[in-house]
């Protein structure tokens, strides 16, 4: 009786479980779909009619956009075009500091007598924590046809409801375009051509330095009216940080290469081409560029300096820059005003901003780091940006006024 009541039910359940597990184990082998099959299925949807070669693992990183982990080559036999499928991973600029991995199809096409590279298709392979990715899926006509010769701008119509995921997708598209242009040498590469033209005018260590491209998105203040900042390059020469700027002035390329330094006395223009105007020089010399905030202008009267600083966007909930006006008197912050906010939905509350700003008043270089202790709750990312802006202004003041208080 005990066997029938207690043992038999368990035995039957166990036997059913074992048989089911066995059946599933066999079927798992029979029905297994390999990564190669998944890849060719994805390609047949977004770029049909092409047979791809084996996938090649690569490791390419761009600090501004992200990284490329694999590339698969093919030739569109019908059109004779060279095609690359690039697996691109964005930096962590997505929602909740997550990222997006894309398959980006780049192809070379003949246009106006020259070969250009363009985005032919893309699809989402994977993502980390992008809960609104469903709003993007199926709408991957965005960026198709975009020329990879230059940075590909964010498509504003794809951001509604999934702004940060869209930003991550834009980063992944751009790193794929950068790889195709710089490494795979697809299409034209005006950035590399501009760098060569700039370096050809330099001498000594400045000519042999290793320049890397830097995004111009956060330094539009370097381009006065009537000019466009096409490219910016960065290099280290000895202990000096050097920036090379390539401008477009009425269709002609102009170059400015300068040593970036917090102290105005150390800042100098190393090279400028003939068409560089006084306004361009002034914009460069009144600027101090740093990783997290840029001083874009300084007005000094006696012991008081008024700075306009752009606190640069960072990963997290603040995808836009903050512009602030910082008045520093005798080495301490006398006033701190936010003139353009990076505030967006999911951003900090106004109350939190009102808590951070008063805490910075009176801070010096020595005390600014601790000024925001326990004042950042609910606005951590905003605090980081505003603190960077305050620190850059104070560092600039100290460098030009004989050291920290």
């Amino acid at each position, binding site marked *: 009786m005990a066997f029938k009541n207690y043992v038999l039910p368990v035995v039957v*359940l166990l036997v059913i479980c074992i048989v089911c597990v066995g059946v*599933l184990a066999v079927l798992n082998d029979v029905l297994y779909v390999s990564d190669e099959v998944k890849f060719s299925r994805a390609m047949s949807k977004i770029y049909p009619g092409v047979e791809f070669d084996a996938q090649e693992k690569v490791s390419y990183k761009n600090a501004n956009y992200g990284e490329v982990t694999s590339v698969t080559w093919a030739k569109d036999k019908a059109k004779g075009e060279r095609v690359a499928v690039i697996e691109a991973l964005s930096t962590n600029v997505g929602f909740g500091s997550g990222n997006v991995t894309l398959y980006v199809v780049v192809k070379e096409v003949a246009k106006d007598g020259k070969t250009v590279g363009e985005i032919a298709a893309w699809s989402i392979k994977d993502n980390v924590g992008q809960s609104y990715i469903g709003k993007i899926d199926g709408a991957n006509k965005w960026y198709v046809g975009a020329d990879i010769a230059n940075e590909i701008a964010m498509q504003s119509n794809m951001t509604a409801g999934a702004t940060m995921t869209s930003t991550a997708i834009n980063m992944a598209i751009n790193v794929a375009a950068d790889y195709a242009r710089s490494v795979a040498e697809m299409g034209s590469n005006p950035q590399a051509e501009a760098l060569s033209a700039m370096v050809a005018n330099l001498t000594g260590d400045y000519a042999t330095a290793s320049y890397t491209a830097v995004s111009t998105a956060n330094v539009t203040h370097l381009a006065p009216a009537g000019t466009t900042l096409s490219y910016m390059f960065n290099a280290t020469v000895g202990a000096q940080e050097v920036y090379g700027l390539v401008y477009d002035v009425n269709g002609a390329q102009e170059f400015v290469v300068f040593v970036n330094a917090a102290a105005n006395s150390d800042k100098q223009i190393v090279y400028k081409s003939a068409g560089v105007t006084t306004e361009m020089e002034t914009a460069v010399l009144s600027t101090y560029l740093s990783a997290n905030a840029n001083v874009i202008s300084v007005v000094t009267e006696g012991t008081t300096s008024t700075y306009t600083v752009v606190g640069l966007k960072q990963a997290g909930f603040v995808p836009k820059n903050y512009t602030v006006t910082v008045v520093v008197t005798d080495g301490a912050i006398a006033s701190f005003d936010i003139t353009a906010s990076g505030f967006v939905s999911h951003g900090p509350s106004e109350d939190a901003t009102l808590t951070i700003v008063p805490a910075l008043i009176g801070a010096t270089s020595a005390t600014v780091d601790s000024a925001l202790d326990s004042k950042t709750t609910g606005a951590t990312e905003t605090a980081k940006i505003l603190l960077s802006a305050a620190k850059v202004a104070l560092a600039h003041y100290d460098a030009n006024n004989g050291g920290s208080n």
Partner: protein
Amino acid sequence: MSKKPTFKEIALDGVLRQNPVLKLVLGTCPTLGLTTAAISGLGMGAAATFVLICSNILISLLRNVIPDKVRIPCFIVIIATFTTVVRGLLEAFLPDIYDVLGTFLPLIVVNCVILGRAESFASKNPVGSSALDGLFMGLGFTLALTLMGIVREVLGAGAIFGTALWNFKIEFFAKPAGAFFTYGLFIAVFTLVSNALEAKKSKKKAVVAETAEEGA
């Protein structure tokens, strides 16, 4: 012992009289979530029908072997196995449908229709009847989902089975609120029609009885 249901009874119960979606209001989760397009409704219905038929057959075969105390865990294991099988089959051979069904596919395991039929029918009836019950319940489920999918796709996307019909669309029908609204409308229409048919049938029976009485 209750009498063995006939083919006609099983078929009518599955598709109409006991329609799992429109009469019993079971399987609501995929009904609301997957009827934005006709093809996803059809795909979900077919997948659920496969699991229904297979699990009904196996449970019916084992009905005298499975002890009453562990019947529910046994049913779940069997249903989960067939759900995994259908998932593998779709991924291997119908990847488009697999992508469309997404997370709803593994959720077939907890579909009330399947466990409900295992418990109320397959565990008490012979294999043939159980297989037919699975088939017709599945057909009823598929029919309801596909019809809802057609209505929502036509109104919400101006297309049918992915083929564009016109540019006009009412986006409300493609959204979750539209799913509830359409589901409510379907249940209302289905109930109205079945009540009318029932009333007509009762009236006919009464007339026949009255005529018989008068004749006697």
